[in-house]
């Protein structure tokens, strides 16, 4: 007993010593660089997507440093990214954001990926009054908390479901879908999925009976078995299959969907559908006619000069590989922060926060403009583009019409 208690005393004090010996602060002095912190899920459930965001961040930082750095009040300052792996877990994302701010003394923060992680991590940024720009948190619940230092480059999920329903409605009005159409609505049990559901339900409710939600079920993120919910979908005999899922769940569910012999005139997994990863893992025949609404597509390069320039730069850096929306949103979030720093003319958190709030930036996003409206909690309101996978393995933009490269159709193989 004596030894045990003594050991504890020694341990408690020892545990505190290394931490206590750290310097309290660093003098700013003549600064030569701007330190920007970020965490990404480089391991864990979202590891693949986290790696994509990292590519986007690295390209944005490289571009700035290749031109000598940011012009801040007439002085060129290099930008350095301090990046940690948050392991796709909320506690780690929050703890590392705390470390970036208080130990690494970063000037600003870029966000992590996924709604849940951004939700938790942005609270740490807000507690410490550090501008936090992210391209990975879409649920508008994140932006309804009255935070002042939070800026999101992803449009809301509710807008995604409204955009999908608008296209579906056009098909119904053209006689390509039955009226009323029966919808199977599956959503991941998270704020992301809840908002998707609310958007579809709200649209259907206002449609005057054009749509009936026959199946309305949630599922757990990263589930391995969707047979129960897919069984309900099969039994209900629906015309439209709408799911809100992240990439791993899209791939798993679509495989089980095919195995179950399901076929719908319209099938969508929300923002997922056209990813190269899905084509590789499922085969192009098994993802035909899947409809997806994304925040960005490389096909926008045909109509948006900034998107074209970005795609070319990405291909040059990453061996000819074509970027997906993940990299583009990481890149765009970083670019927005850089622009605000230059506009502020100082490495000052309050000044940069003010510039971000008033930002109006030519963008590679749909619509061509990036701004963080404060009445929307700092969340971008850019439109979505809808893509549809084709039998030849391409996924052209089909909506909105001003950027569409092909006309979308309900799946002709399904009755």
């Amino acid at each position, binding site marked *: 007993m004596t030894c045990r208690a003594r050991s504890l005393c020694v341990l408690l004090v020892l545990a505190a010593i290394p*931490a206590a010996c750290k310097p309290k602060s660093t003098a700013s002095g003549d600064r030569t660089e701007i330190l920007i912190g970020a965490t990404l899920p480089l391991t864990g459930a979202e590891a693949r997507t986290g790696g994509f965001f990292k590519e986007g961040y690295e390209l944005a930082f490289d571009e700035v440093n290749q031109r000598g750095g940011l012009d801040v009040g007439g002085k060129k300052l290099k930008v350095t990214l301090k990046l940690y792996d948050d392991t796709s877990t909320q506690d780690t994302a929050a703890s590392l954001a705390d470390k970036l701010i*208080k130990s690494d003394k970063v000037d600003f923060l870029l966000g992590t990926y996924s709604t849940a992680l951004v939700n*938790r991590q942005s609270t740490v940024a807000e507690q410490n009054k550090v501008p936090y720009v992210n391209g990975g948190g879409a649920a508008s619940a994140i932006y309804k908390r009255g935070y002042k230092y939070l800026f999101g480059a992803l449009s809301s999920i509710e807008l995604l479901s409204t955009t999908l329903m608008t296209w579906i409605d056009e098909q119904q009005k053209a006689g390509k879908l039955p009226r009323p159409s029966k919808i199977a609505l599956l959503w991941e049990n*998270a*704020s992301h999925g809840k908002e998707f559901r609310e958007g579809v339900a709200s649209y259907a409710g206002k449609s005057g009976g054009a749509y009936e939600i026959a199946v309305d079920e949630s599922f757990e993120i990263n589930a391995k078995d969707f047979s129960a919910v897919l069984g309900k979908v099969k039994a209900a005999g629906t015309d439209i299959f709408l799911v809100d899922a992240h990439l791993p769940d899209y791939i798993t569910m679509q495989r089980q969907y095919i195995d179950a012999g399901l076929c719908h005139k319209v099938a969508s997994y929300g923002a997922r559908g056209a990813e190269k990863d899905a084509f590789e893992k499922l085969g192009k025949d098994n993802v035909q006619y899947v409809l997806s609404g994304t925040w960005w597509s490389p096909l926008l390069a045909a109509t948006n000069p900034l998107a074209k320039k970005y795609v070319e730069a990405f291909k040059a850096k990453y061996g000819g590989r074509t970027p997906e929306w993940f990299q583009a949103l990481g890149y765009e979030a970083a670019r927005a922060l850089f622009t605000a720093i230059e506009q502020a003319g100082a490495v000052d958190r309050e000044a940069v926060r003010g510039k971000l709030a008033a930002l109006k930036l030519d963008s590679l996003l749909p619509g061509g403009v990036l701004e963080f409206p404060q009445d929307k909690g700092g969340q971008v309101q850019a439109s979505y583009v809808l893509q549809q996978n084709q039998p030849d393995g391409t996924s052209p933009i089909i909506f909105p019409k001003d950027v569409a490269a092909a006309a979308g159709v309900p799946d002709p193989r399904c009755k």
Partner: protein
Amino acid sequence: MTGRPRIPPRPAWGFAAACAVLAVLPALVLSDYAHDQLTESYLMIACVLAWNWMGGFVGQISFGHAAMFGLGGFVAARLILHVHLPAPVAWLGGAIAAGVFALGAHPTLRLRGPYFSIATIGVGEVSRHVFTYWERFTGGATGLSLPIDVDFRYQLYWWTLGLAAAVAVASLAIRHSSFGLRLLAIKADVDAAADVGVSATLYQDVIFALSGAAVGLAGAMHASYQSDIEPSDMFGFDRSITFVLLAVIGGVGTSLGPALGAVVFVLVRSYLLQSFPTLHLGLYGVLLIAIILFEPLGLTGLGRRFVRRVRGARRAGGA
């Protein structure tokens, strides 16, 4: 439950001195980040030591303690947001709710060993689902946001230190009381304990409720500390697993050993994440495997072995 715990005075003074040093550290040399790291460590110490009352003293390995952690957090958050109670009062509300909830798990206490563990997995997972879907209480998958109060968050250092110290003292008191001996008797042989008049049901109910209340109190403080909580995180199975793993690393069944596991978890894991971002999971796994393979009593056993060696060497030198 009779008989006063006997804690020798010298270690007690040493413990009080250590707490006093930790209490004044922020005012002296502690960096902001170290301040936060220690706050998180104290919360984890409280949780793991309280888990050890059930898992270590009674030998009932619970994989469902996240249910009490989450419940304490959400009850406290609701009391702060809607009843506008001061946070410390709301925390007590969370602790009581978690303690009562643990009492509700009474039927599982009829089970022993792996059967009890499996039952607690069920309780934990059912709780996570129920509270995730109970939107009016937990806010559903979106969770609840508490007002951000930077000053109060800073003060939580002392609240959490107080909690960790109180749970550590309670651990020693329980372990060295006749109540603790009864728990050890149940752990050794539940039938033999019953033969000498120790009611396994009663004592397990009491210790499970106390353990649940302490973990619930930590969950309530965690909610105030984070300002934003979600059911999937608060009630997550990962959290329950963490309590078990840390107790194993520190020394399950020892009075204070699990606290070592908590310190290792928060500080060493943080160091590994920063220094070896691509290897941290592997290194952490290797550390865990090494401890389980070579030292069943975890870091505590390792420490004891080291002390014995040093003493043996001294004696040999003296002879």
